[in-house]
């Protein structure tokens, strides 16, 4: 399944996403949690901590400034711009895939 969580600021999007991701992970699912927010905080709710959340933001900013290259594939995004979170969840800040395969 692919679920996107949306809503007004402060409504609880990030918190809902994180709980959803970890609850699914606890049931044995392989879960990818993607932070698409321009102000990414999902790491805080998943429990990876301040500094790791900030490290992921820094990685993404290096892409925005052109200091780093976009990943060639989805798996590479998870590898390069991701971090392991509790309950079998892999967190990644989403950027974009360079020259994505169709589909």
């Amino acid at each position, binding site marked *: 399944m692919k679920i996107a969580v949306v809503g007004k600021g*402060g*409504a609880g999007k*990030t918190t809902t996403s994180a709980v959803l991701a970890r609850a699914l992970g606890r049931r044995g699912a392989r879960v990818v949690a993607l932070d698409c*927010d*321009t*102000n990414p*905080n999902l790491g805080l709710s998943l429990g990876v901590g301040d500094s790791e959340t900030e490290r992921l933001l820094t990685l993404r900013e290096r892409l925005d400034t052109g200091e780093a290259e976009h990943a060639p594939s989805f798996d590479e995004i998870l590898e390069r711009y991701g971090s392991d979170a509790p309950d079998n969840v892999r967190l990644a800040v989403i950027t974009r895939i360079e020259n994505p395969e169709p589909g």
Partner: protein
Amino acid sequence: MADLAPMIRIAFVGKGGAGKSTVAGTFARLLARRGEPVLALDSDPMPGMPYSLGVAVDDHPIPEDVVVAGGEGRPRWVLRPGLDAAAMVDRYAAQCPDGVRYLQFGNLWGPVVRLQQAQFAWSQVVAELDTQQWHLVGDLPGGTRQAMFGWAKYADTVCLVVEPTVKSLHTAARLASLPRAQWGPRSLIVVVNKARDAADADRVAARLGVEPSAVAPHDPAVLRGDRRGAPPLDTAPDGPFAQAVSVLVDRVVSLYSQPKETAQPEESAQSGEAAQREEAAR
């Protein structure tokens, strides 16, 4: 008429849900009650200020026909000939309680594609406004993006609204770097909102290294009013929230009454402007 000089130019930033619009709208009305001319500027595409200002109709979009294509070397959209910033405020800034005027660029219910014209018009009005005529009280969208792009460059003071939650604090810590941005606001102040106890205010002060200018406690009356669509000033005019914002107004007024040590930020931060137009074009 305005007794205060220079005019206040303040913008409220912070994480979504921290209470920017609620504080900003209340601030604007309390300042206006002192007999000051106040223009409230809302640059949130999903505007929240009407609810705290207490303006009867929440949707006040700038119509798209106020602009024409800018042409070579100019912004994509410019105010059509004959329309200037003063005329735009006169025609399109809503009349609010306590005499506040409110200029909105968003459109709650209209098609998003038409926002672009309104956003360019709004930006031009703000850039060309007679800043001696109005105190400016601005409300930005939640998060860091627009703030970092220079959407508040009309302001020389940025007020960081912080809820004492871990995520709101984290966002506030990112935004605390704003005075070092190219368009650099002269000062950054902090207001704590929805504080449960004294430790909350201490937590914010410790994390940001800034003593809060005001601390608004969690105020159940404000929430009850919200459910009826009523602004804090009309629901609980003497409640702890309104009192805290009143303290904030005092602090800001005194900030502007002090002699300036640093120069005012330059009127046109070119890169910020370019970024803002680029952002508006999305």
